[in-house]
């Protein structure tokens, strides 16, 4: 009982440390251009202390350096915002897991940052940066409009949405596989098995896309 209580207490302390580290990193990242140098130095010093305490507290001897964490954080979050499902698969593969641990979700920022810490400790900065680069092909618009826009997929959907279904089904065998995959993903289809039902569904969604987005 005493051992369990100690483990729970240690776990809570660890969670608090992690939370404080994230808050300090958030503040530094968001406000660094606007803070004076003494405030920036204070935040950096605070983070140094927190990282050292974190490293001492972690029972499995995970070590994450502050510079690696800050270097990886931005691209990591951007990659998750862009394609959470892809990032989840990549992380599971990198960690040799079948599923995310219980209580960890791919949809919350705090859990994504927790996975960043775990992956940095397990596989290092280079692997994390590599994973964070993984993006679907021909995706544009994120820098321009704050939202990922796959122009190639959108153009295909516009074209397919104006075709009769019979024509689409007949011509689908001649379409580029990658375009089909990207377009299907854009309208929320996995496209794993392209049977007749799935193809009809893709066409139905393309019709909807064309109808809803024609200005």
């Amino acid at each position, binding site marked *: 009982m005493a051992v369990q209580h100690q483990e729970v207490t240690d776990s809570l302390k660890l969670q608090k440390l992690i939370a404080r580290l994230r808050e300090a990193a958030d503040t530094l990242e968001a*406000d660094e251009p606007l803070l004076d140098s003494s405030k920036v130095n204070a935040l950096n010093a605070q983070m140094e202390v927190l990282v050292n305490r974190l490293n001492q507290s972690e029972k499995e001897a995970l070590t994450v350096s502050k510079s690696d964490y800050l270097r990886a954080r931005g691209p990591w979050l951007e990659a998750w915002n862009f394609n959470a499902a892809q990032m989840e698969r990549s992380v599971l593969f990198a960690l040799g897991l079948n599923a995310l641990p219980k209580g960890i979700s791919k*949809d919350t920022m705090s859990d994504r940052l927790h996975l960043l810490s775990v992956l940095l400790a397990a596989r290092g900065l280079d692997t994390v940066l590599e994973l964070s680069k993984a993006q679907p092909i021909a995706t544009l618009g994120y820098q321009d*409009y*704050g939202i990922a826009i*796959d122009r190639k997929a*959108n153009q295909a959907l516009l074209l397919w949405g104006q075709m009769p279904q019979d024509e689409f089904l007949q011509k689908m065998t001649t379409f580029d596989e990658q375009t089909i995959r990207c377009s299907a*993903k854009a*309208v929320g289809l996995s496209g794993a098995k392209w049977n007749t039902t799935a193809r009809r569904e893709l066409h139905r969604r393309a019709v909807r*896309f064309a109808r*809803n987005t024609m200005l």
Partner: protein
Amino acid sequence: MPAQILAFLNFKGGVAKTTDTVNIGAVMALHPQIGGKRVLIVDLDPQCNSTLWLVGREVYRWVQERDQTVHEIFRRSLKKLKPDMASIIHPVDKSELSGGRLDLLPGSFSCLKLEEDPKMLDDNALGHLVLTKALETIKNQYDYILLDCPPSWSILTRNALRAAHHVLIPYTPDYLALEGILWMRQLHEEFSQRVGIGNIARLTGVIVNRVRNAANHQYVNAHQQAITELGQVIEQLHQKHGYRLHVFQPHIAETSAVAEAVNYQEHLLNKDMNHPVTRQFTALTQDIMMHLRILNPRMIEAA
């Protein structure tokens, strides 16, 4: 430095305009790390949802009886009198930690009758500059003024467009909300031609609300396509009409926590600061403030 005035506007109802206005305002004012701003929320919607949410029914009835509301500004304007802003602005909350404060200019259902007065509708009488003139007297007392607008094209909406610097468009991932954005673009363009290009707020960005998580695959599919359609429409608005809209991040999840906060008449920061949706609103507010700084370099110099 005078306040940045942001209008939260979409002609589609139920897209979380009030939720966004109240919670973004609260984060700007009261968040211990990124808050500290002086924020005024102006409830321009005759439904008075912002007012009811922030001050509750008793205070709401009290201010209605005394017309210590936004309606007072318009009523006095019709008599060619200046409004006494100090008497109608109500403090809601303040933070000793961040140094910020959140105030409210309550709404009034009496504003529904403004459309009946011909003086308000006459462009020559400049009925749509009433709010601009009123806010002129207090704009140096605040860092941000947030306008919770009604979901309709009315004298209040036109006042908001004349008074504000930026329009933020709350959006839920469905076709009707997308049409709301297109109507806004059209009406914005027509109004801009009427009063002079550059004399109304810029359509600046879109806030995506009520996104469902991965729990239900059917809904994930529907929302993914709606987001794709939003991207396509935004790109076309830029290419065909020159409107460059920015989609703010992160997208806000659909959650019962928001309804719970409403039921308790508290903003999310007070209700549950560590809830994932509160963190999303914090990150969203950061993104909005950073984007506004990019658009308005004077804000960086002043800070």
